[in-house]
């Protein structure tokens, strides 16, 4: 029985079927980017275990890759592979296993986000590209602010959020991936507070480019037993901060991109953009920064294709924003445990394939075998 299972799992036919399905996913996932955008397509077809095609559940990218990994690993138990003659093939497959393991680690553990820093200012937070958070900031104390943060997975309708920092409860009424504000025409509900008195928050279809989506959230504050109890709404990137006053305590509430705090800060000294002379084609971008750790600055130059690596984080020159008299750099920040796997596995696979080719090719390219 055990042998049977290994035989099926390690069969090259299974590998072929996995490949065929993976190719289908790749084609569909590429073409659909035109309509639903890269991020949504990636979530649906590649980063998913199962996705629905109409009513039919189909295996997503992660299941297929996991199956391929199982196939490769069980293949190692085959006796006839461990021969000197097949050393090249064996090495290639070991490399393949490593590549897939690395991909798994990256898929599960890596995080990425962006940092926008103006010239002359500094930052120690990374904003996630996609995930949001609800921050309640207590600003009534002198000298420090107290942050209470709820992550996006908690934003389920009807979910009750509570924290010892807060003298009130929050009940999620609605979370929207993309939303817009509209002037309220009818008389506002007596329960509405803040922005919602004059505006209503409407869900709109998601944009193809996830960066253009403005998530919104509507929630109820209760249990403070003051006039502040009521329904509040927040939208990502709103210009006027939402305030909440309960007795002596003053809070600011904000729906923002999930922030990660770095154990060091980055200060932008100068951003430079060089064009090919007489053209609008950029030749290079670079940011001269100070990496400040324990109040000690270290000067670093981040360029296109030349990122800064520090404490498991990597910072890339991703983009820039040109202001009237000041420029801001946009750095992509990545934290990835699986980084080194592709490097090592590609070397291993290349060596294996080369060995295999070199041992087999001479006889394959001749006109007649003897």
């Amino acid at each position: 029985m055990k042998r049977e299972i290994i035989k099926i799992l390690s069969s090259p036919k299974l590998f072929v079927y996995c490949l065929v399905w993976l190719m289908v996913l790749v084609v569909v996932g590429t073409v659909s980017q035109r309509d639903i955008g890269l991020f949504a397509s990636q979530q649906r077809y590649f980063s998913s275990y199962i996705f629905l095609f109409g009513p039919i559940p189909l295996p997503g990218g992660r299941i297929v890759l996991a199956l391929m990994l199982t196939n490769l690993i069980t293949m190692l138990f085959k006796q006839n592979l461990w021969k000197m003659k097949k050393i090249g093939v064996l090495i290639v497959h070991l490399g393949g296993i490593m590549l897939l393991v690395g991909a798994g680690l990256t898929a599960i553990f890596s995080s990425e986000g962006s940092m926008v820093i103006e010239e002359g200012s500094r930052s120690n937070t990374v904003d996630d590209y996609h995930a949001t958070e609800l921050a309640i900031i207590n600003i009534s104390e002198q000298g420090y602010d107290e942050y209470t943060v709820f992550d996006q997975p908690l934003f389920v309708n009807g979910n009750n959020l509570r924290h010892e920092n807060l003298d009130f409860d929050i009940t999620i009424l609605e979370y929207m991936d993309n939303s817009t504000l509209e002037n309220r025409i009818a008389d506002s509900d007596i329960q509405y507070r803040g922005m919602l008195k004059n505006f209503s928050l409407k869900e709109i279809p998601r944009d193809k480019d996830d960066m253009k989506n403005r998530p919104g959230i509507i929630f109820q504050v209760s249990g403070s037993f003051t006039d502040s109890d009521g329904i509040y709404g927040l939208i990502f990137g709103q210009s006027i901060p939402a305030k909440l006053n309960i007795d002596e305590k003053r809070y600011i509430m904000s729906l923002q991109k999930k922030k990660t705090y770095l154990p060091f800060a980055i200060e932008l000294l100068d951003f430079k953009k060089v064009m090919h002379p007489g053209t609008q084609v950029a030749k290079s971008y670079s940011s001269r920064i100070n990496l400040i750790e324990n109040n000690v600055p270290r000067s670093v130059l981040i360029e296109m294709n030349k990122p800064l690596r520090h404490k498991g984080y990597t910072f890339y020159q991703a983009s820039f924003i040109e202001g009237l008299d000041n420029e801001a750099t946009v750095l992509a920040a990545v934290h990835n445990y699986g980084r080194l796997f592709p490097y090592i596995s590609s070397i291993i696979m290349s060596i294996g394939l080369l060995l295999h080719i070199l041992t087999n090719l001479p006889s394959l390219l001749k006109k007649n075998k003897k």
Partner: protein
Amino acid sequence: MKKSFTFALAFLSIIFFDYKGLNAKDLSEKNIPIQEQGRIKPLDTYARNQALAFYGKRKIKHEEISAIDWMIDLFIHPEKGLEQKIFNIRSPDIVNALDLEWTNNFHKYSYSEIFPGIQNQLPLISNIFDKKEEDRDLFENQLVELYQNIMKYRQIASSLSCLLPMFTVYDPETAEKLHIEPGQFTSYAHIMSHRGSLFNVSQNILTKSEESWTENEREVALLLYNLQQTSLDEFAQALKIIPPAKDDTTGLWISPWELLDGREIEPHQDRIMKSMEAYLVARYDNNSGAMSDALKSYRTGLLSSPGDRVKFSILEKETWLNKANLFTLSLVFYLFGFILLGISWMVQPILLKNVAYGSLISGFMLHTYGIYLRMVIMSRPPISTLYETVIFVGFVIVLLSVVIEYLRKDGLGVFIGSVSGSMLHYVGFGYAADGDTLEMLVAVLNSNFWLATHVTTIILGYGTSLMAGLIGHLYLIEKIRVPNNSKRLKSIYDNMFGVTLIALFFTLFGTILGGIWADQSWGRFWGWDPKENGALLIVLWQLMMVHMRLSGLAKADRFALGMVLNNIVVIMAWFGVNLLSIGLHSYGFASGIAVNIVLFTVFELVTGFGTYYWARSKGKNIKASF
């Protein structure tokens, strides 16, 4: 086999016999450096590209003059240039819109013919400019292009008018002030450099009434009026031929008219202006001695420029490359090889096959030398634009064909090499028709290390993959032709599998290297971007074929069909994903290519499946032994 190489040597020596004198120390007018689109190029390239834009060809064919001669004549006789029939208008709609007459065979028009029509259409043109580019239709695009060409032409025509000898004075005293002989003609630039000496006279002219002017004052007044007229050409700043000043930080070269805007002219710039003026005069007088003296002095001026030194040897190489047309010659040799191979199947098999092989090798050498020169000129690895990928894939396939022919010696390599080499050259010419093929790169691509590793590997992968597909075609054809010759079929199958393994190596390694580059510059190894997925698809397809063979799902016939279909995957990854125009990799933009991709796909499907089923029906009674 030795004979083939002898033939190749003979062919090449005939070609290169004509091209000596590459290392001339003197400056030729062709090699005058000019900055355009971010790089320093020879005037020859500039002229060819302008001719291509206006006229549709890299020389003025109906007048039998080269682009460089056309351009210099245009500098010397701007007014004649306005009458020259230089604008090729391909669309009758445009001709009608401009109130011109459409002639069937020769639809070339001059500036003076077109300009009134353009003026009448200015409201329409400004409307089109307000539209987004993707919303414009064909007519609107063509009209805008013609408008821009007309404006550019006017600029180029007037760009050296400040150096033409058009002014003189006969009064000895004034002449002396201007440092000329009385009656000697001189240029706007020369007079402007001595304009201070005319200050007193011009003050007199301004204060006195016209009747009381002296003879001398009258002459100066006329001169000033004429200078004023010429200064209207000030807008003509297209020709950036003068290196920047010493304290410049932008690296921007300047045009003669810009230099005359009142700024301080540095010695090297002055020398270049004066030499150019002398050259134009000598050329006008047809005095070849004076021309070469002027160019020598021009060269000295360039050499004394501050900043980056002008690399004359690079300019000369580019001019030579323009003239030599190596890829066209290479195409000729490929075609010649193909024809000879065809004839060899009927008469003189051994001799003609050797000559055909020699011809393929010669074409390959020229092909290689062309790629090498382009690398030297741009000082970067061989592939960075879509055009260059086409040229390089051709190179890879012909290289493999030469090797296979060397090993097999039965014409198979010559056949594949000559057919695919010619076809890819032909596709390449389609891309070259867009203008300068030596382009500058956007920031993310501007990395020689990654261009050399990832891009080259992946393109090697495309080339070898296509090669495997071609052998697949050949296998199926042979299976129909000689179903009983299992020895021959087996040897072709082996070749195909061998090339597939090489292809898999390059596509796999190239794709992973691409991931590593992405990890280095964007922070993620893999982002499911269309171009990445395209490359991945080739790898997956080839992995599938290899494992189908291993698991017995595919025997030789099916493997051959699989590799034929792999061609479609390669073309999709290579050109198809650019049509999606999404993702970070869409640098090679091409709009008319969709039709060609569809045609190619249909062709491969029909021939692939057609020959596959035909071969199967033929081979039914013969038991395959492998």
